[in-house]
């Protein structure tokens, strides 16, 4: 994204001459705004308005009746106080942290390993790399359903394989035991996230000049040393982007957990996202649901700002010529 556009703005985006502005400038500018108008209206109505309302809802007491009568009294910080004192709050925060950290670290390591492997050129490498994207393109509900059957205690293929290899004595209740459910969800989510890491890291690796590796090899550096002294340092900005985006996306994972466990058993896989859904859409307490959502927004925002900061320069050079 950044390389392609940074190159092109210099030659491409010469806006129409400034001198015209004085004469037909006003009308011309209006015409230009008509290009942005539909999107601006859409985002205002279906993004800015709802989200700002969500912030308000966090301070309101919503019930089913609020939808019909429109009355939702302001209750100050009550929703937040209730949240924090709810024993589920700690559980949800911990589960979210474990789910995110577990998914992210393995997705990244596996994705990086695959990216380094596919850096070599060999017959079919492009096709094979393309096939690896499949898990990322499948609807999450589909992947979730597949894993749910794979994890099945009695007939799931995972237990059958593990039993066959004599790695376990008794079948593991992957999804129905509080001990294993979160791990099972993390494993499924790792599978989904690897392709994203692979693609971004692989395109980052393409930018590392081959001459560096050759020079290092001449100096007697082994593969591991070349990886540590050349690949990792040069890949740092890309790694930062992958991890930050990965974090933002993992925080909001919903589909996979809902299909696998629905947050259970006994809240063992309840994250902030699934909890917020349960509060709003199952208990119809939209105020509390909004409050949990707002906590998520704050977390996501912190990392979003970090992300924007890291791509700030490329944005500025594209967005506002001069």
């Amino acid at each position: 994204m950044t390389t392609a556009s940074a190159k092109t703005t210099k030659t491409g985006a010469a806006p129409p001459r400034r001198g015209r502005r004085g004469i037909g400038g006003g009308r011309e500018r209006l015409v230009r705004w008509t290009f942005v108008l539909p999107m601006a209206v859409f985002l205002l109505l279906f993004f800015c308005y709802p989200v700002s309302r969500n912030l308000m809802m966090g301070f309101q007491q919503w019930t089913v009746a609020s939808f019909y009568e429109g009355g939702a009294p302001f209750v100050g910080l009550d929703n937040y106080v209730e949240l924090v004192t709810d024993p589920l709050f700690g559980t949800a925060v911990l589960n979210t942290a474990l789910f995110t950290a577990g998914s992210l670290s393995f997705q990244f390591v596996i994705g990086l390993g695959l990216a380094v492997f596919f850096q070599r050129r060999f017959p079919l490498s492009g096709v094979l790399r393309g096939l690896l994207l499949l898990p990322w393109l499948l609807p999450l509900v589909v992947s979730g359903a597949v894993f749910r059957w794979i994890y099945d205690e009695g007939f799931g293929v995972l237990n059958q394989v593990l039993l066959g290899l004599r790695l376990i004595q008794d079948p593991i209740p992957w999804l129905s035991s509080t001990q294993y459910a979160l791990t099972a969800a993390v494993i499924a989510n790792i599978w989904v996230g690897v392709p994203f890491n692979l693609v971004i890291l692989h395109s980052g690796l393409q930018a590392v000049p081959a001459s560096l590796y050759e020079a290092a090899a001449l100096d007697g550096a082994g593969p591991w040393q070349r990886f540590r002294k050349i690949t990792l340092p040069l890949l740092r900005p890309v790694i930062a982007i992958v991890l930050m985006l990965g974090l933002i996306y993992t925080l909001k994972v919903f589909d996979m957990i809902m299909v696998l466990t629905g947050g259970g058993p006994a809240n063992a896989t309840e994250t902030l996202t699934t909890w917020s859904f349960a509060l709003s859409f199952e208990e119809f307490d939209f105020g509390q649901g909004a409050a949990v959502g707002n906590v998520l927004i704050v977390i996501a925002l912190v990392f979003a700002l970090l992300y924007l900061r890291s791509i700030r320069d490329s944005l500025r050079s594209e967005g506002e010529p001069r």
Partner: protein
Amino acid sequence: MSARRVTDTAVGIVLVLTFLAPVYWMINVSLQSSDALLRTPPAWFPADPTWDGYVEAIRTQGSHLLTSLVIALGTVLFTLLVSAPAAHALARFRLRGTLALVLVVLLVQMVPGIVMANSLYPVFSQLGLLDSYAGMILADSTLTVPFAVLILRTFMSGVPGELIEAARVDGCGQWRTFGSVVLPVCRNALITAGLFSFLFAWADFLFAVSFTTGNTIQPITVGIYRFVGNQTTNWNGVMATAVLASVPAAILLLTAQRYVAAGITGGGVKE
């Protein structure tokens, strides 16, 4: 040297087969009879394939597949209509607040979906958009419009300025120039944005489960979710539905692989 390359290919094939094992399993299970699924050890290959699962999938989930198709196509249309002009403007016009708009677009993608669902629900309830195609298309477009704007903007800023100048000198207005010069040149980008919009809308579950009650319309993701939740479920039927729901992704991968890579690196976004 060539021996090493052959080894690399072999290793690569093994890696891909291992990684895609769950996909194989989905297809394998979809082709077996419900009795065969309750055998241990399981049948590793569909030695005695049956279409029972697919028959059940079409019977119980066929209408949901159609619903999702309509929603996804509607989302593509709406997204391209809204995003393409905006992307052109953000790429080319020096308008005040352009950078701010780009930032908003980036931020939209970072807001957790559950927050969008939670905050759109009262709005949709007021506007009567629950349980409707229009509501689903608008909701899914909050996912696709920002993505499409970003990816189209990147491509559109690559259109040579001389082309546009030439059209302007010939007396074309801004919109005419956009329609007859910029859009044709950016065909590939439009395809990419359209394909991904389709996939996002097709795969959406959160909005679907939040904004539909199942009374009138039910997208396929919700269909699968309720199908799975049913205790007496026939898993060959579930997996057959899963295979059918994967068809758009497979088509996308087979026909437009280069666009896929561009989509991931360009917008870098997925739910």
